[in-house]
């Protein structure tokens, strides 16, 4: 684990709502290595986005109740505001979902990228007047350098006519271009870790592929770690090295993409795969997962998936669910995972008869 960049350990993030305390993240643990793309998958409402925001400590209005987020050896859950600002400005960047509103509508795109460059270059002394860009107060050379750098970054993320586009406003960009601009904002600080929260969800397939390719290239060039959050297994399968499957604020299964997606051990992962149209043959129908994600108010006792799982026993509904490392680096949080499969390399031997899960009970051949 020498090159482990990020380690999330037993993270709990809660929200207060009218109905009670929502346990949005309920004991999640996983890690991201340098130069590695990790996919974080799950249905909406499973706590992916809150996990992402908790990592850069923008969990508002939630609050981290317990757990540890260590980045490069620093514990971010205990860091003060100034440290966090430095981490956000230099080490970790995030690309949010919904490209419509993530860029400030009243500033030109180029300015918003250049601002990120300035934060990165300017260190901790951020004067209000510097950032308002009031001409007499700003350092002319540094200001222009940041602007040039912004254009460079726009070129890197393949925005056409970067010079002209820099002066345009977000509403003049298409969704895909806005997301690229957002990527440029994130890359401006030359981060070691990039968190991409559903970066392609709102986009069409071609644009999506372009942006994912971009993330790949950048990972190769900069040796960044990437945490790619998505509800789309197909995207994760194409792009990621490792995958973390979340449900009900907890990690159900994690491991190398090839293993987890071809030989899933957790009933939830299997159900999720069956719902993904890309995994089907020509004549098969897409199956759906019956029921809806659990109400996270008050948290769960036992496995959060128990209510929708056909294999659930009474043991699943109470007490701790053991996390079993079935293969090296492949962890599963399920009572049903046979302990004897530990270390068994082949897919066929690892409890294959059991995976006739069919959470909806309908589409088994």
């Amino acid at each position, binding site marked *: 684990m020498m090159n482990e960049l990020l380690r999330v350990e037993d993270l709990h993030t809660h929200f207060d709502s009218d109905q009670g305390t929502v346990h949005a993240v309920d004991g999640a643990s996983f890690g991201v290595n340098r130069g590695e793309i990790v996919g974080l998958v799950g249905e909406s409402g499973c706590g992916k986005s809150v996990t992402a*925001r908790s990592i*850069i400590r*923008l969990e508002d209005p939630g609050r981290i109740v317990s757990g540890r987020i260590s980045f490069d050896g620093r514990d971010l859950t205990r860091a003060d*505001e100034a440290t*966090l*600002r*430095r*981490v*956000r*400005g*230099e080490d970790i*960047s*995030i690309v*949010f979902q*919904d490209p419509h*509103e*993530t*860029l*400030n*509508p*009243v*500033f030109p795109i180029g300015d918003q990228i250049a*601002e*990120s460059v300035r*934060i*990165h270059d300017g260190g901790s002394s*951020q004067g*209000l007047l510097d*950032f*308002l860009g009031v001409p007499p107060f700003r350092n002319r050379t540094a200001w222009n350098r940041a602007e040039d750098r912004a254009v460079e970054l726009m070129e890197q993320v393949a925005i056409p006519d970067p010079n002209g586009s820099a002066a345009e*406003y977000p*509403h*003049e960009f298409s969704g895909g271009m806005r997301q690229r601009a*957002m990527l440029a*904002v994130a890359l401006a*600080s030359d981060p070691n870790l990039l968190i991409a929260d559903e970066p392609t969800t709102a986009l069409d397939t071609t644009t999506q592929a372009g942006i994912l390719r971009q993330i790949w290239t950048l990972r190769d060039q900069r040796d960044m770690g990437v945490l790619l959050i998505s509800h789309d297994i197909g995207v994760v399968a194409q792009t990621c090295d490792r995958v973390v499957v979340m449900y009900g604020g907890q990690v159900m299964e994690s491991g190398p993409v090839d293993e987890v997606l071809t030989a899933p051990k957790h009933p939830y992962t299997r159900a999720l795969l069956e719902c993904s149209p890309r995994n089907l043959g020509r004549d098969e129908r897409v199956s759906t997962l019956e029921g809806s994600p659990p109400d996270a108010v008050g948290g769960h006792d036992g496995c959060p998936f128990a209510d929708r799982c056909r294999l659930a026993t009474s043991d699943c509904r109470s007490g701790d669910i053991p996390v079993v490392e079935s293969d090296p680096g492949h962890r599963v949080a399920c009572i049903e995972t046979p302990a004897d499969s530990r270390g068994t390399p082949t897919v066929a031997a690892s409890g294959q008869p059991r995976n006739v899960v069919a959470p909806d009970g309908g589409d088994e051949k």
Partner: protein
Amino acid sequence: MRYLLKRLVTTVLVLGGVSILTFSMTALTPGDPAVAALVEQTGHQPSEETVVAFREQHGLNEPFPVRYADWAIDTLGGDLGQSYSSEQTVASMIGQRLPNTVELAAASMVIAIAIAVPAGVASAVNPGGRVDYAAQFGALVGVSMPNFWLGYLLIIVAALWLDLFPVAGSGGLDHLVLPAVTLGSGMSAVIARLVRTTMLDVLDAPYIRTARSKGLRERIVVYKHALRNALVPVVTIAGLQLSYVLNGAVVVEAVFQRPGLGTLLVDAIFARDYPVIQGVTLLVGVIFVLTNLAVDLTYRYLDPRIDRRGEPA
């Protein structure tokens, strides 16, 4: 461009309405306006001949539409007529007083914004907190305070007890302070409440989260990213506050005995000096309508999302 054109046409229509309303106001006079005006001037019932001469001199014998047309045409040429009670033209009387009122309006606007923006932002940054509660309470008190009383309160405390400023009159900057504070603090209450509401909205927006994720200081997030967005509606309402300024100026000028449009209007009303009343009222209406137009256009400039596509690149 099309929008601009449409906006201009309605503005002209409203201005026409304003002028008719202003001019026909005279018709509200109980009895004969000429007699009423002469009574105020001379202090006794005028003789038949004086009334006839007065009517002749001021063209009051024409039928109403003709008088309106004459007046409207003269007005477009900048001639607002001759005052009944003084030798001056209405235009020159207004010209003498207007700078004082503009000065007061500008100063009180500056004071209002200087109080309102920081107060509203401080409220919104920590909603439900102590600062918020105090600011909201203060704003409500400010809205409820009659500005003539606030004026006297300031005179008693700052001028009579502490002897910091002159009691009344006009002149240098020290004469401006108390009236401007009186007028500005009431206005700041309204603006502060608005800044708070819009800031609360804006601070929830995803782009604020983006700004924070860049590692920006909270101060810059609030004053650059959030405030600039919140300013759009604030400018609108602040502009519409001009109505408040003009309403308030009438009273505040009376309190501090400043020669301005307000005192000119009040004096003209008591003297039944109709041309002056019409002139000042029309001016107030025009200022107000044009401000609304200006606000609308500023709004479009501040928010790049509006109406940029219509323009040639």
